[in-house]
């Protein structure tokens, strides 16, 4: 297992390298001089040059990249050009919102996707199978921000069941926090729940057609036992991988959902950073979201390897 982990981390290094180069390069393409953005408009030339030298912006790009990388390695993502707050601090303030949103959404995805996937795989080619498969394609096709708006309109503005906008910290009022999080999490989860449902269905059908299921049946085991104990356990393996990899979709989706529901998360920080051309904020959040995705895939790989010995020795 240790060897597997070492190999896996080793193979991730080039990905992280590409990731950091892309993040750095893209931000250097942003129009406008960072120093002028920082000071806004009229400034004297010498002061600008001095500030550029202090920030290292007068050095060649490869050197700037190495300098930036070494700082990132030490956990220093620089300062916001607008608020002068350290980027790590700004992200740390927003991170709990995004993490909570993503986790609740992932919970909903598994809670809906897995049982429904099992159900339709057992009731193959019945009305419920067809209906669910059509509905899951609708779920895949609806933009999360549009679904969010429809949910706000129906459940918040018309029926007054849930609040439409804003955020309450979980440490302040836990119940209120949950009430604020339900609609955004549903909007975020819908698309992925559809993916997982289809995945579970396909995977279950594959496992159910294998010989060991036939053996289990011929031994006279009860159907419930065959489905949950024998089939589902095997069918869930590929689903774990996909669910992990799809965390990236959820993380990307948080930008849209946080914008619709006015949640102060990392996605919203990224958007505000882009709109204000606050490039250290943009760089920091993009890097964090991409690294979170790579990190999740590492965790998923390890989980997968610990569940299935064949992977470890490949």
């Amino acid at each position, binding site marked *: 297992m240790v060897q597997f982990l070492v190999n896996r981390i080793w193979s991730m290094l*080039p*990905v*992280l*390298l*590409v*990731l950091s*180069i*892309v*993040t750095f390069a*893209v*931000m250097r*393409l*942003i*129009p406008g001089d960072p120093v002028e953005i920082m000071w806004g408009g009229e400034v004297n030339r010498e002061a600008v040059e001095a500030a550029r030298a202090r920030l290292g912006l007068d050095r060649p790009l490869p050197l700037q990249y190495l300098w930036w990388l070494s700082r990132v390695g030490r956990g220093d993502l620089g300062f916001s050009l607008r608020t002068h707050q350290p980027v790590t601090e700004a992200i740390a303030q927003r991170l709990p919102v995004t993490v909570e949103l993503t986790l609740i959404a992932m919970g909903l995805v598994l809670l809906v996707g897995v049982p429904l996937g099992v159900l339709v795989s057992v009731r193959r080619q019945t009305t419920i199978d067809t209906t669910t*498969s*059509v509905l899951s*394609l*609708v779920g*895949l*096709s*609806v*933009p999360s*921000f*549009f679904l969010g*708006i*429809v949910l*706000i*309109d129906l459940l918040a*503005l018309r029926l007054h069941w849930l609040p439409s906008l804003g955020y309450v910290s979980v440490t302040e009022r836990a119940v209120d926090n949950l009430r604020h999080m339900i609609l955004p999490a549903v909007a975020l989860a819908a*698309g992925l729940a559809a*993916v997982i449902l289809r995945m579970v269905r*396909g995977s279950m059908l594959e496992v159910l057609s294998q010989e060991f299921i036939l053996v289990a049946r011929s031994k006279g085991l009860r159907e419930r036992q065959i489905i949950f104990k024998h089939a589902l356990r095997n069918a869930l393996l590929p689903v774990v991988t996909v669910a992990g*990899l*799809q965390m*990236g*979709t959820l*993380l*990307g*989706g948080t*930008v*849209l959902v946080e*914008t*619709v529901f006015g949640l102060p998360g990392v996605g919203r920080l*990224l*958007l505000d950073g*882009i*709109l204000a*051309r606050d490039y250290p904020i*943009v760089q920091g959040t*993009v890097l964090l*979201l*991409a690294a979170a*995705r*790579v990190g999740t895939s590492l965790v998923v790989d390890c989980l997968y390897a610990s569940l299935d010995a064949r992977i470890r020795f490949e």
Partner: protein
Amino acid sequence: MAATGVVGLALLFVVLMTAIMAPAIAPYSPTKQDLDHVLARPSRQHLLGTDDLGRDLLTRVMYGARVSVTAGFVSVGAAALLGVPLGLAAGYYRGISDTIIMRTMDGLLAFPALVLAMAITAALGPGIRNVIVAVAAVTCPAFARLARGQVLLLRELEMVAAARAVGMGDGRILFRYMVPNMMSVLIIQGALSVGQAILTEAGLSFLGLGIQPPTPAWGSMIEIGRRYLEQTPWMSLGPGIAILVTVLGFNFSADALRDALDPRLLRTGGREA
């Protein structure tokens, strides 16, 4: 073909015809303002109502189809034109070119698609051309991975060995024997990708980073609708349903195509939204 496939193609036909015929069938000009009828309810004159500047929403939804469909097809076309040759080269020549190409693609795939697209439009600026570049960049790795996987499968076939034995060049082997054999999976990936590309474009436009007003784009129309949600809740419905129908058309069609071919074929590539 399954019933969903027929429905999918029918939906796409309606959307494409609307996009092509918009100037002929739309009741108004997409930029014509009627300041006496701002935020009007749906009525006989304005079937979907009007927006905050008194522009007819039905007209703008129709013209929005042109923008979305163009952005979807052009960006996926560009992604395929770039990604497929890269994947072919990586899979056929293996070695160092494989490592460099595929590690770069993995690096791009490490970003959540929307986040990378946002970063690229932030760098290049908004507008339809830059949105297409951004969406193509996030779509390209899926094509490269798919093409590479297919080459690895196809290169083991006897016809390739035979072609090589009679002294056929690499280019001819790739484009005469390999590309035609992977066309069906590429088309399925293409259909799925256009749907995803339309969703990404709409997301960018919703965030204000994509197509800019007064050009009618579904994403930015939904954003305007959101601002007036309490007064005129129907404003977002038209463009929202338009996106849903279009993406659904692509997903239904891709699904039916995949079932008609081999359900296992697409496992080698693909990217989530």
